[in-house]
């Protein structure tokens, strides 16, 4: 389990004292600049601040880089696409921390890439792909790094706005695969802007505003009042056949 111990980065995120739990998909919600990326970067060990962050009871800075790479994976918002690399070579880089591509890793890659619609992209040069296709490859690469079926040390998967450049179909497939990975025991945290998708797929939702965690809990914690308070948008909750959707009124 990853635990924030009064973790704070002055000017970016206030003290946070809670954690991402194994077996749960946590969705981070909040307007631009609310601290979602800083929180994820702190959880990955990319950003240090006051307080601390522990994984399985041990501070992140006490881990060797290679050991940490076997336990957590993260995908940030900015991607650099290597020149001339093909899809399958990029995916294989995700397996580097766990000893490279073995037969078991190949099976895990097939399981992960099939639902993300990546099979047709294996032979193509990544720089020639569309933004959404590149994003799906990078998501799959991060998933391979901490796939519980091939990595028994895997604990945490962090994705910063992974759905930003994806079409609707692929947004849903990514969230379904993330849900599956969390069911296999991984703690998964993802920052997301679609409140309805977060409520539908997330086991736990964290709502941030100006660096402060203003709400945390199951989907029921998200209300029209909270949305107006955090995003400044008036909404109405529509219910049909047991499903709930927030509709903007403005």
């Amino acid at each position: 389990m990853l635990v924030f111990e009064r973790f704070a980065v002055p000017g970016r995120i206030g003290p946070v004292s809670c954690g991402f739990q194994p077996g749960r998909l946590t969705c981070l919600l909040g307007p631009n600049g609310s601290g979602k990326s800083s929180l994820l970067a702190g959880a990955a060990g990319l950003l240090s601040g006051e307080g601390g962050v522990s994984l399985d009871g041990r501070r992140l800075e006490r881990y060797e880089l290679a050991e940490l790479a076997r336990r957590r994976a993260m995908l940030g918002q900015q991607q650099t696409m290597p020149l001339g690399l093909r899809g399958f070579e990029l995916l294989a880089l995700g397996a580097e921390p766990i000893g490279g591509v073995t037969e078991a890793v190949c099976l895990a890659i097939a399981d992960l890439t099939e639902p993300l619609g990546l099979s047709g992209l294996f032979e193509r040069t990544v720089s020639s792909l569309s933004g959404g296709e590149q994003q799906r490859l990078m998501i799959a690469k991060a998933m391979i790094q901490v796939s519980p079926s091939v990595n028994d040390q895997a604990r945490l998967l962090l994705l910063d706005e992974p759905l930003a450049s994806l079409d609707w179909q692929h947004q849903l497939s990514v969230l379904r695969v993330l849900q599956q990975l969390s069911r296999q025991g991984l703690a998964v945290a993802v920052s997301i802007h679609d409140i309805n998708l977060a409520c539908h797929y997330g086991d736990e939702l964290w709502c941030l505003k100006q660096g402060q965690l203003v709400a945390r809990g199951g989907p029921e914690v998200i209300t029209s009042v909270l949305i107006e308070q955090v995003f400044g948008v008036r909404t109405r909750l529509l219910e049909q056949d047991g499903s709930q959707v927030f509709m903007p009124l403005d």
Partner: protein
Amino acid sequence: MLALPLQQQQDRQKRWLWGLVLALLFSAALSLHLGAFELGLDALWRELSPLERQVFWQLRLPRTLLAILVGASLALCGAVLQVLLHNPLAEPGLIGISSGASLAAVSTLALGANLELVLPYWSLSLAAFLGAWLVTLALLTLARRQWLGPGQLLLFGVAVGIFANAIMTWLLYLADDASLRTFLFWMMGSLGYGQQLSLWFWLPPVAVLLWLGRQGAKLDLLALGESQAHLLGLNTRRLRPLLVLAVCLLTAFCVAMAGVIGFIGLVVPHLLRLLVGGQQRFLLPASMLAGGCFLTLADIAARQGISSGELPIGAVTATLGAPLFLYLLVRRHAGV
């Protein structure tokens, strides 16, 4: 599912590496054979005359080895710089590293001549290294702090090159006849100085070259960007300065031993990337082999091109490389 394309790619890369080894051996044999005094291929097994022995051991062999070493180093430095700066157009000559090294060495030479000092050869190598180091540090700082974008970094290199050439032209203009020839060597490149090198000069660059050529797996991660490489377990804070140091040492060695020879670092990795893909663990050793082969063949062209002497090797590589550079620049600008 993934194992098959990976295996096929590895087999293909192996075939390419063996092909490049054969091409390098062939070009080296051609370089040993051709020249004003032709050595027949039977020289490999028959007893050599004293003159032939002198030509082989004191002229052809050192020159051929220097061509291979300099070509391999420049191509490898180009491939590594393209990852470090995240710019496919980066290479030691174009981004000003060679110019910095050349300017520092020529200035040291001019200062020595002015003060009537006899400078040891290593002082020029040291000056070339410091010049290369200063320009590389400036480039990395500008790239990391994002003060200059990829296109502007190239312009920075071009500006450094123009400035260095301007200063060297001044020094050339003021130099006496004895220094003139040496200055031209630094500015236009030549492999004719290979025979002056003792064994001790070869060992450090060969060691650095072999070390750098084995960093492909780490560079594959670094090519994803610094934070992704860190997240995949690579200690980028330790690796990056080592890579910069190695590139500086090799570029300085090349400039100190053969003057400024441009475009190899651009042409060779780019063509290999187009033909066999961009995996760094393949690209680095392949660039070394192809770079050595390319410069050896360019040197043969420089030696055999005109009957009345020898063309500057820098002019030969620039004639081949500049059109490709322009093509890449236009293609990149057009977003193709």
